[in-house]
């Protein structure tokens, strides 16, 4: 039996690509790629720590790009962002199939990895759309439109483009409370930000940070929302299918103000 080699990487996309690089470079036979943050107590394994180097990552991605379409590349990235446990290994095996195939030949859609990848990519894609819909900005005193979200998958990198394009003339922050980082647009570029010491922030400090009209507009929106329901057609099941309860927390119209 071949001993397994476990490659431990830092959790970034570049880090993952570097792991692939090393697997090819060292011709590792049965590799497993795993995030640093995931503990592992397996016996009979060799562990290797991967150092993330942009150049190596780029080489792998470049090779992948040559043999895939834009859509396939996008799906690949989406699947990575799903953060599903063990997803790195599906991606690796898929990448190996791609590197083996001849140029310009279509892919067989009934391949197991490919089915799985298109499935997960669709799930992540759906979450991206949800976040584009469910972000609710609140205007702060310093004229920044601020929103909290808690998506199922790590979709912030996927929604940057949409929000930057649409809200080009206002400053905004979208903060992922589950992954504890956010994106900030300062009218020029989008940057990744983190907050220190979030614990000190209470509901009242937050209210005080609002711009003067903020609460009024939230009330107006809720008034609007209440008045567009046609009661004789009420359909709670359908409603919950569209907006599952776990998203309600950050939806203005689902909270009394």
């Amino acid at each position: 039996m071949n001993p397994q080699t476990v490659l431990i990487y830092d959790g970034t996309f570049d880090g993952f690509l570097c792991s692939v690089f090393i697997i090819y470079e060292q011709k590792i036979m049965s590799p497993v790629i795993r995030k640093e943050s995931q503990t592992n107590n397996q016996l009979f394994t060799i562990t290797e720590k991967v150092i993330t180097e942009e150049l190596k990552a780029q080489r792998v991605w470049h090779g992948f790009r040559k043999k895939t379409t834009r859509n396939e590349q996008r799906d690949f990235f989406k699947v990575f962002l799903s953060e599903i446990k063990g997803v790195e290994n599906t991606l690796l095996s898929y990448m190996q199939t791609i590197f083996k195939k001849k140029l310009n030949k279509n892919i067989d859609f009934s391949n197991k990895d490919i089915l799985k990848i298109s499935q997960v990519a669709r799930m992540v894609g759906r979450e991206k759309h949800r976040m584009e819909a469910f972000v609710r900005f609140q205007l702060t005193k310093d004229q920044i439109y601020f929103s909290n979200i808690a998506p199922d998958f790590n979709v912030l990198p996927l929604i940057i483009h949409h929000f930057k394009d649409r809200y080009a003339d206002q400053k905004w922050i979208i903060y992922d409370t589950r992954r504890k980082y956010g994106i900030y647009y300062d009218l020029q570029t989008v940057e990744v930000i983190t907050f220190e010491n979030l614990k000190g922030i209470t509901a009242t400090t937050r209210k005080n940070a609002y711009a003067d009209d903020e609460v009024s507009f939230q009330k107006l929106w809720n008034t609007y929302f209440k008045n567009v329901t046609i009661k004789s057609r009420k359909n709670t099941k359908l409603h919950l299918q569209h907006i599952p309860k776990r998203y309600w927390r950050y939806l203005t119209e689902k909270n009394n103000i």
Partner: protein
Amino acid sequence: MLFERIQEKLSILADAAKYDVSCASSGGKRANTNKGLGNTTAMGICHSYTEDGRCVSLLKILLTNHCIYDCAYCVTRKSNDIKRAAFKIQEVVDLTINFYRRNYIEGLFLSSGIFKNPDHTMERLISVAKKLRLEENFNGYIHLKSIPGTSDELMRQAGLYADRLSVNIEIPTVSGLKLLAPDKKHEDFIKPMEKVKNEIIQYKTERKIIKSTPKFAPAGQSTQMIIGATGENDRDIMYSATYYYKKFNMRRVYYSGYIPVTMDDRLPSIGSEVPMLRENRLYQTDWLLRFYGFSVSEILNDTHKNLDLDIDPKLSWALRNLDLFPIDINKADQRMIARVPGIGMQSVYKILQARKFRNLDWTHLKAIGIALNRAQYFITCNSKDFFTKDVEPYVLKRKILKNSKSKYHKYYNQQLSLFS
């Protein structure tokens, strides 16, 4: 802004607008220019959903619910005793911008009761759109309702600022319109539609010569019909719809189950069931006509004047044409595969792709995601195992119904019980 007053107006004027089912914000494309506010993408976003499960993507309100007319089916009609309100132009602009900036909406859908006369009303609607575009540099979606009887010149202006224009035909037949909206003339509806169509065509030709011709209603026009207010059958409705699609290049026709809002002998009484299932069947038919290559006379004709409520129109068509089935999934052309009950357009493309590599069998078809509980009776594939029995359509129908539970089952039972 005086928020309390605005809040009251908003509740009145949103409430009055909600019976308009047209909610699409899609189909247009407007890029964000010069770092302004907003864009309109080809796929509109539903930012929220009402408790009856409808998409909320636009701020949909009336400018005012004062009206000089008295259409029987409308809550806003003159003789109805309700609270009236009117927004100022700037108020609508502010609401739209502030909602948009908070990512509540994709844009504005503005309609109005008719005050003074059609042109005067339309002018106010246009001012809102114009202010949004020119003063606020707003590139989000704007849908204006064209007021029946508006002059051509105003329709042209409206199209310059709006993404979509619509005139609701409301009542599918001319006789129904006479009965329920005596003040309105059929031509008043037709004229603005004709104008919009001509302007769009003109825009497209001019566009070829001069690149900077201003955009004219890039998302086209749509209309809405009320279903079940007068006695028209499904055939009348779908033939009218087809007429509007063809004649005026409509993007969408909406079908809205009539919700009784008034006591009037000419109409179903308050409390009657909203014909949701029928509405749904009409949308399915609309879909089959627009995307599946069916012609309207295949689905509705002199012998088949109404859609079945218990099964969808495609299955119903297939059961009436059993002699065309079964088809071989590995050989049939796209047109026929699209006609198999239980196979959606998405799956059609997947089948065409996948069968290039191998002959498909039941497991493949299942993985592709087609609804085998219906499709299995109409197809053969790479398997010796398929449905061979020659059965009567009604037997097959019973078989299929037994194995599938429609999400509309509940309504179906309710509506059936109305007749028993």
